[in-house]
C-alpha cells in the first residue's frame, strides 16, 4: 500500500480479454470469482467526505450525473476513498422490468483510508467491501420493497454494490442473460494483486469478460 493524500486520477481496472459463454465452465475452478457486468458507464468516485470527484474511464469528470446520489457518504472518515463501479444512466430494464438509472454500483475499491491498495489481492478488497456494505438484496424505500437478485443495496442513497459469486458461472450467466441491465459476467482472478492505474490499460490480466451475444437484426 502507498499513501494517497490528495485527489489524483486513477484509471480503473477493466477487463480487456473476453471469452464466449461456452467457455465459462473452464474458469469455474476456484481460481476466479465473478460479478455481473452492468450496462452503464464505468465510473470512478474519489471522495474524502468533503470533496467528491466523479470521473469516467477517459480521465474526465462526468458532465452529468444525478445530484441525489450520496457519493460523499462513501467516505468512511475524512480520509480519501476511491471506488470503481458502474453508473447506470442508460435506462436499461432491470430485473422487475423497470428502467434502472441514476444508480452507482460499486465493484471494487482502489483507495481505502488514505491508502492506495497496491499489492492487495482481489479477495482482500472484496472482503473489505463486504464488511463495509454487507449484501442486502431487499430494502424498503420510498416506493415500497425494492428487491434484486443480482444487485446489493447499501444504506447510501443511490449507491449499490455488485454481488460476488464464487462458482456456478454458467448457470449464473444464463440467469442474468434474461435481464436487459446485465451485459454478462466479469471473471476476476482471486489472487490478482492491485497494480498502479496510471495508464488506461492496467490490471487487465486478472480480468475476463463474458458478454451476451449481440442481437442481429435481419431486414
Amino acid at each position: 500500500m502507498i499513501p494517497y493524500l490528495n485527489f489524483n486520477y486513477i484509471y480503473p481496472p477493466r477487463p480487456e480479454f473476453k471469452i464466449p459463454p461456452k467457455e465459462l465452465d473452464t474458469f469455474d475452478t476456484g481460481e476466479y470469482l465473478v460479478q455481473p457486468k452492468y450496462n452503464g458507464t464505468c465510473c470512478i468516485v474519489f471522495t474524502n467526505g468533503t470533496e467528491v470527484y466523479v470521473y469516467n474511464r477517459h480521465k474526465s469528470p462526468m458532465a452529468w450525473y444525478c445530484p441525489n446520489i450520496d457519493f460523499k457518504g462513501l467516505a468512511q472518515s475524512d480520509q480519501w476513498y476511491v471506488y470503481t463501479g458502474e453508473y447506470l444512466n442508460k435506462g436499461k430494464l432491470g430485473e422487475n422490468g423497470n428502467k434502472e438509472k441514476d444508480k452507482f454500483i460499486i465493484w471494487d475499491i482502489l483507495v481505502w483510508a488514505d491508502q492506495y491498495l497496491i499489492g492487495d489481492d482481489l479477495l482482500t478488497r472484496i472482503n473489505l467491501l463486504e464488511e463495509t456494505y454487507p449484501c442486502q438484496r431487499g430494502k424498503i424505500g420510498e416506493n415500497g420493497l425494492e428487491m434484486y437478485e443480482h444487485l446489493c443495496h447499501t444504506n447510501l442513497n443511490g449507491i449499490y454494490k455488485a454481488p460476488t459469486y464464487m462458482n456456478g458461472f454458467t448457470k449464473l450467466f444464463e440467469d442474468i442473460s434474461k435481464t436487459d441491465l446485465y451485459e454478462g459476467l466479469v471473471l476476476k482472478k482471486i489472487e490478482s494483486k492491485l497494480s498502479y492505474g496510471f495508464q488506461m490499460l492496467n490490471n487487465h490480466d486478472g480480468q475476463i469478460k463474458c458478454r451476451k451475444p449481440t442481437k442481429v437484426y435481419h431486414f
Partner: protein
Amino acid sequence: MDKKISKTQMLRDTMYVMFKDNHLPYLDMEDFLIMWQSLADQWNIRIEDDQWEEFIEEVNSVASNRQNVFNEIFDKYFI
C-alpha cells in the same frame, strides 16, 4: 438553411447546443439519447446501438464541453 452543411454536421452542432449550453436542465443522459437518436433517424443517420452507448459514455464528460473535443468524439462514431 446553409446548403453546404451536411445533416451529419447539423446533427453534431445540434447535439452540442442541446447538451452543453444548459438550455435543457430537466433532461438526463437517457433523455438526450432518445432525442438524438430520434433526430438522427429522421435525418437518415444511423449507427449501431452499442456505438450510441459508447458515444454517450464518452461525451458525458467535462472535457467535451470544449466544442472541438465534442466534435472529435462525434466524428469518431458518426463519420
